[in-house]
C-alpha cells in the first residue's frame, strides 16, 4: 500500500481520458475518426471546435479548483472560493460595465472578446486587492460568506441597472457571456489561456510551502521564516489570474472552486497540501469534462450545470458543519 496516492491519481486520470474521448464525440454532428486529423475531411472544422471545447474544459478544470483551493487554504475557510468571495460577480460587473460603455464605440470583432476578457480580469484583480486588504478580518468564517453575498448582490444590482439601459444586442452579448458557454473559445484564446494558467500555476507552486508554514498561525510562520507579504502577493496573483482568466474566456464557472477542493479533502489527508494540489488539478479536469458532457447532452450552459451540482454540495457542507 505504499503508493496509494499514485493509484488514486491513476484512476482519476483514466477517468479523464475516457471522459475526454466521450466529450469529443458528443454534439450535434456525428464525427468519424478521420475528421480529427484529415484537413480535407468534411467535418474537420467541427472536430477542431470540439477539441477546443475539451481543451478549454481541461484548462478550466486546472484553474478554477486550484484557485479555490489556494483561497481556502489561505483564509483557512473551506467556503472561500472565487465565486463565494464574489470575485466572479465583480468580474461580471466589470464586463457589464465594459459592454455598457462601449456600445456606442465601434470596436472590431476580434478585439471585442479581448476587451471583455481584459475587463473581467481587471474586475477580479480589484476585488482580490480589496479582499487581501481586509484579509485579517476575513479569518472569521461567517463574515467572509456574508461579505461575498453582499458584494455579489451589489454587483448583481448594478448589472441589472445597466441591463435596463443597455441596447438589446449588448444585452445579448452579456447574457451569452454569463452562460459560461464552453463553445466560444477559439484556438488563439486557448493559447492565451494556457499561458495565463501556467503563470498562475507558477505562483501557486511558490505559495504551497509558505501555506504549509502558515498552518499553525502567523507567529509560528514567522519563526519558520515565512514572509507573509510575499505569500499574500503570490496568493493574490495566482488565484486571481487563475480564476479571472477562465472567467474572462469561458464565462463565470460557478461553485467548482469550492466543491472540488472539498472532495479532495475527503479523498486524501488534507494536511498534505502538495498532494491536495495535484488531486485538485486531476479531479478538477475530470469533473469539468463530465460537466461538459452533461452540458452538451442536456443543451444547458455549463454554468447552470455546475450550479445545480454545486449548491446541494455546499448546503450539505454547511449542514454537516464538519470542517467549518
Amino acid at each position, binding site marked *: 500500500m505504499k503508493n496509494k496516492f499514485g493509484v488514486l491519481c491513476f484512476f482519476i486520470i483514466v477517468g479523464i481520458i475516457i471522459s475526454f474521448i466521450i466529450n469529443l464525440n458528443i454534439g450535434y454532428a456525428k464525427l468519424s475518426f478521420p475528421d480529427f486529423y484529415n484537413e480535407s475531411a468534411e467535418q474537420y472544422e467541427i472536430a477542431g471546435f470540439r477539441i477546443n471545447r475539451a481543451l478549454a474544459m481541461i484548462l478550466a478544470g486546472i484553474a478554477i479548483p486550484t484557485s479555490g483551493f489556494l483561497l481556502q487554504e489561505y483564509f483557512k475557510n473551506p467556503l472561500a472560493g472565487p465565486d463565494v468571495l464574489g470575485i466572479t460577480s465583480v468580474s461580471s460587473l466589470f464586463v457589464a460595465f465594459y459592454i455598457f460603455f462601449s456600445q456606442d464605440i465601434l470596436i472590431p470583432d476580434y478585439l471585442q472578446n479581448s476587451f471583455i476578457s481584459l475587463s473581467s480580469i481587471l474586475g477580479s484583480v480589484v476585488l482580490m486587492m480589496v479582499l487581501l486588504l481586509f484579509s485579517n478580518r476575513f479569518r472569521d468564517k461567517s463574515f467572509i460568506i456574508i461579505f461575498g453575498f453582499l458584494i455579489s448582490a451589489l454587483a448583481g444590482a448594478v448589472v441589472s441597472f445597466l441591463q435596463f439601459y443597455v441596447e438589446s444586442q449588448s444585452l445579448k452579448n452579456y447574457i451569452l457571456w454569463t452562460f459560461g458557454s464552453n463553445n466560444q473559445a477559439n484556438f488563439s484564446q486557448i493559447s492565451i489561456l494556457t499561458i495565463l494558467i501556467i503563470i498562475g500555476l507558477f505562483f501557486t507552486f511558490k505559495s504551497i*510551502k509558505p501555506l504549509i508554514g502558515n498552518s*499553525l498561525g502567523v*507567529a509560528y510562520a514567522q*519563526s*519558520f*521564516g515565512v514572509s507573509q507579504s510575499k505569500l499574500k502577493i503570490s496568493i493574490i496573483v495566482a488565484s486571481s489570474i487563475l480564476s479571472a482568466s477562465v472567467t474572462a474566456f469561458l464565462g463565470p464557472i460557478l461553485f467548482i472552486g469550492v466543491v472540488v477542493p472539498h472532495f479532495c*479533502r475527503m479523498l486524501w489527508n488534507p*494536511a498534505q497540501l502538495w498532494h491536495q494540489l495535484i488531486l485538485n488539478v486531476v479531479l478538477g479536469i475530470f469533473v469539468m469534462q463530465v460537466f461538459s458532457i452533461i452540458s452538451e447532452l442536456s443543451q444547458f450552459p455549463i454554468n447552470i450545470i455546475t450550479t445545480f451540482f454545486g449548491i446541494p454540495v455546499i448546503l450539505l457542507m454547511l449542514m454537516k458543519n464538519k470542517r467549518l
Partner: protein
Amino acid sequence: MSFLKINNTSIGYSEPLIADINTSLELGEVCLLMGNNGIGKTTLIKSILGQNQLLNGEISINGKSIQKLNPNEIASQIAIVFSKAEIPDNYTVTDLISLGKYIHYPYYFKLNEKDKNEIASIIDKLNLTQFRDKKLTELSDGNLQKAFIGRALAQNSPLIILDEPTTHLDEENKLMILSLIRNLAKNENKLILFSSHDWRLAKEFSDKIWWLKDKKLISGISEEIILNNPELITPKILDFNKNFHPPEIVAPKLEKEMIYSFLQKNFASDLTKFKLTFKNYKWELKSEDFYDNYHTLTDIKQSLQNLINTNN
C-alpha cells in the same frame, strides 16, 4: 563562549521595557523566565527570535549576531513553542511533528526515510505512540502541548524556547511537561528557555532563572535567586530543605493568607487573637487559648480542623 549571549541590550518598542540586559546561557541548561504579566517576557522572546528590533546592544547565538542571521538561519538555531497557536483541524500528531522538518526542505514535498524515522522516534520518546494518527483537535491539553514540543524537537535546533508551556494544564500535566523539559536539556544537550507563571513549581526544574522586575533582568542560578530575594521565598511545604536557614520570615504571604482565611471561615471574624509566624523551620500559631509549633501548614490546618471537630 556562551551559546546564547545578550550584551548591554535594551528591548522594547519606543520606550525600553527592559534595559541593560547582560546575561548568557549554555547548552544543557534549563532557564526559567519569570515576571508579571505585561513586563516584557514575550517581547524578550521575540527579540531573541529576531522578530523585534533591539533598542541597542546585541544578542548572539552560537557566536553569531541574531541581527545578521536570516529567518531560516535563526530557525535552525531556535525552535519555539508558543503559548497560543492555531490548531489546524485536519492535522494529526504525526503531521504536526513532521512540520518541524519544514525549514529543512526546499519545497517540503515528501519526508525522506531518515526524517520519517526520526519523527517516529520523537513520537515514541514523548509517549505519544498511541496518539500518532489522532487529530490534534481530539487530544487532551497535555498531549497537545507535548506534540507541539515534539514539533520543536523535530526542528533539531539547539535552543528551544517555550512560552508559557504549563498554562491551561492540570498539576499532573504540568509536572509531566516540566520534567520532559528537564530531561531534554540533560539528555539531548539542548538549551531550554521557558517562561512560566507557575514559577513556584517550575523553579524546581530549572538551573537558571531570568527574573524580569522593575525594567531589569535579574539572572543567576535558581537557588541563589530564590535565596537572595526574600519575596520569592516560600518554605517548601512537602519537602523541607534542612540546609536552608532563613532569618525570621514575615511572609510566605500566600500560605499565611490561606491559613488566615481558614481561621476566618471557621473560628471568628476577629483574627487579632491569632498570630501566625514562621521561626526556625517551624510555624508558630499563637492565640489566647493555645500556643503550638508545627512543621508544616498542613499540620496547622489539621490541628485546627481537630479543634473544630472537638468543639462541635
